[in-house]
């Protein structure tokens, strides 16, 4: 119960900090919107629905790397030390992951809305399934990137290391996500997608479990 209480307080802290400055959410929103707009201006109209799907995931991938990597990289050393004295490492990791998931869910929902508005020719017939894929994507990106950003922040070499370390890990997840999203774009019945949804959930459970096991070793300097 101690853990649940700590997690609750830490999430409240993250949300409060974000609410005061509104830097991350507004920054990433502007990033997504301007990327979509740039894509619109350069493509004008997309050739087919596969390109529509791929472009959306590329935009989301880069937006989420930028958004989630902030979670550990932006904290100063003193701030981290203070948190680690007050809370257990598991609570810190869980709270960061949950907070990032919330952030990404809000962000991807807005991004999907804006994207379908701008590129309205290929809106998938099964928008609900596509939204499920987007939600699964937000969860998977947050779980993987939170741990990788913790590793990158400890290595002390921010941005570039984050990209190098996270891309090979995220590619298997991304392949599953694009396949799931493609099912929605093609309008296949839901039964065809249960495999991918199950695999994604499994990968997420695996990631969270290994992160929880490894983080206590990582945070201590």
């Amino acid at each position, binding site marked *: 119960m101690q853990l649940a209480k700590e997690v609750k307080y830490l999430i409240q802290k993250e949300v409060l900090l974000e609410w005061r400055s509104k830097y991350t959410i507004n920054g990433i929103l502007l990033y997504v919107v301007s990327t979509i707009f740039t894509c619109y201006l350069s493509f004008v109209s997309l050739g087919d629905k596969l390109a529509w799907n791929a472009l959306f995931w590329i935009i989301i991938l880069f937006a989420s790397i930028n958004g989630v990597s902030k979670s550990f990289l932006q904290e100063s050393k003193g701030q981290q030390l203070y948190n680690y004295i007050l809370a257990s490492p598991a609570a810190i990791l869980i709270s960061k992951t949950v907070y990032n998931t919330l952030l990404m869910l809000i962000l991807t929902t807005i991004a999907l809305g804006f994207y379908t508005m701008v590129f309205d020719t290929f809106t998938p017939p099964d928008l609900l399934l596509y939204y499920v894929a987007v939600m699964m994507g937000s969860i998977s990106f947050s779980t993987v990137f939170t*741990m990788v950003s913790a590793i990158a922040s400890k290595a*002390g070499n921010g941005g570039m290391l984050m990209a190098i*370390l996270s891309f*090979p890990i995220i590619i*298997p997840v991304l392949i599953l996500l694009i396949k799931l999203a493609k099912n929605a774009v093609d309008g296949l019945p839901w039964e065809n997608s249960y495999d*991918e949804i199950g*695999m994604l959930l499994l990968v997420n459970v695996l990631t969270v479990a290994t992160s929880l096991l*490894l983080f206590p070793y*990582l945070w201590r300097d």
Partner: protein
Amino acid sequence: MYKTWWKILGSVLVIYTAIAGILMGVPRLPIINESIRNLYFHVPMWFAMIVLFSISVFYSIKSLSSKSEIDDIKAVESVNAGIIFGLLGLVTGAIWAKYTWGQFWSFDPKQNFAAISVLLYFAYLILRNAIDEEQKRAKISAIYNIFAFPMMVVLLFVLPRLKDSLHPGNGGNPGFNSYDLDSRMRMVFYPACLGWILIGYWIYTIRFRIRSIETKQQHN
């Protein structure tokens, strides 16, 4: 030589498979024809790579709790040896693909996923280069190694089964099991796997000993 018997066994097995793999009879299958012999040289590379990467993860876990420098060197040197086998696996696969599929690299899912999993370990090595302090480097790279290993397993063993691939064993192409039914091939294939795993392990022990002598010299 130190602890000789398995090194001799490994060398004899590899020499045997090199000779027998080229000279012994193989079943005649359409499309692959004689290129089926690549099974003896391509697949054992992946087995050796997986064994070496597993050794690396084992020592990474050990180095997290023991904090000893030796375990860290063992982890990184087994990755170094494993990457060589991974690259050889990609190259032997690409040469085979040139003759059966017509191109060295045709963006087949199996080729892509194998390449990505090799990238994963290059990222591990770059992460090590990015950190100067030795103990911190040992700890952080061990954590990344353990974190990445399940993803590599997903990449190499789970995802290729969900995708359509031209690779033998996928989508109705004659695969490993149908070769395996032929007892002549089994006579060469199993010794080849064992032999290459032993040679890979040998390379790793030599690299480990060179590195540990080097670090010992640095400390003095």
